[in-house]
């Protein structure tokens, strides 16, 4: 299974899907959205194609025990069988949109966490062993990419932890 990375991949995916659907139709495998074969009974109808009414349900008429389910796809499915390009592409776009929104949500959560950390640090005092420990912990959490951005207009402080020296700039209060 390959991941669609650009428009060409999407085009080839659409072509493949069309081919699969056409092959399925040729072999009489008209399937529903879950890949299951649809039959006349799927729409809760009786053997004559009539929809079951509330009256039937109240009288507890059990058609499933007496009705033989035909093997052929129902007529409604045959009419829909001409696969719609727009349906495929719109659904693909929706799927990608969901994925993108998920990544953006995660990105926002990390950004919010970092912003909160920044606020906490700016409100705290720089003196005292406890606050230095706290800063060192945050440094570990923020290491590499994130260590640089936190502070501005302030003094430098070095925190040594786990035989590593971390240089920090803290606000003067």
């Amino acid at each position, binding site marked *: 299974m390959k991941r669609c990375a650009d428009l060409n991949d999407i085009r080839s995916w659409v072509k493949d899907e069309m081919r699969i659907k056409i092959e399925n139709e040729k072999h009489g495998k008209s399937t529903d959205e879950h890949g299951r074969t649809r039959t006349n009974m799927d729409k809760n109808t009786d053997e004559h194609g009539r929809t079951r009414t509330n009256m039937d349900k109240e009288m507890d008429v059990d058609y499933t025990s007496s009705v033989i389910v035909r093997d052929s796809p129902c007529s409604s499915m045959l009419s829909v069988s001409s696969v719609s390009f727009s*349906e495929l592409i719109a659904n693909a776009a929706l799927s990608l949109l969901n994925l993108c929104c998920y*990544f953006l949500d995660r990105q*926002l959560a990390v950004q919010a966490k970092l912003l909160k950390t920044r606020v906490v640090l700016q409100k705290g005092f720089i003196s005292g062993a406890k606050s230095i420990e706290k800063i060192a912990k945050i440094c570990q959490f923020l290491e590499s990419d994130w260590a640089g951005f936190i502070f501005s207009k302030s003094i430098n402080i070095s925190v040594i932890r786990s035989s590593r020296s971390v240089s920090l700039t803290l606000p003067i209060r």
Partner: protein
Amino acid sequence: MDELQSIIPKHGGYRNLKSFRIAQLIYDITVQFCDCFIAKRSRTHDQMVQAARSGVQNIAEGSQASGTSKKTEMKLTNVARASLEELKLDYCDFLRQSGLSRYKPENPALVRLK
């Protein structure tokens, strides 16, 4: 240069972001989709293309702004998220109004897409 980097840290690495890459792909698909299936003169055409574009641009802009302001980065990322949500609604509306079905995530076709 080093001094500048200590004041304004690394920023603008948006091309490596997964969200940016997918948003760009969505933009490309949307442009093609709207050209094929939505009337060019309709408002929806422009709205969809602009929403997709806004998603990409705001992710890039947010990443670029992150060097100087984390708050701006967050705001712009949120704008991108909102634009994509708007686009999602437009696609859902299209499917509903055209009488087409919306696939469930476990649909074999969508599984093959990922």
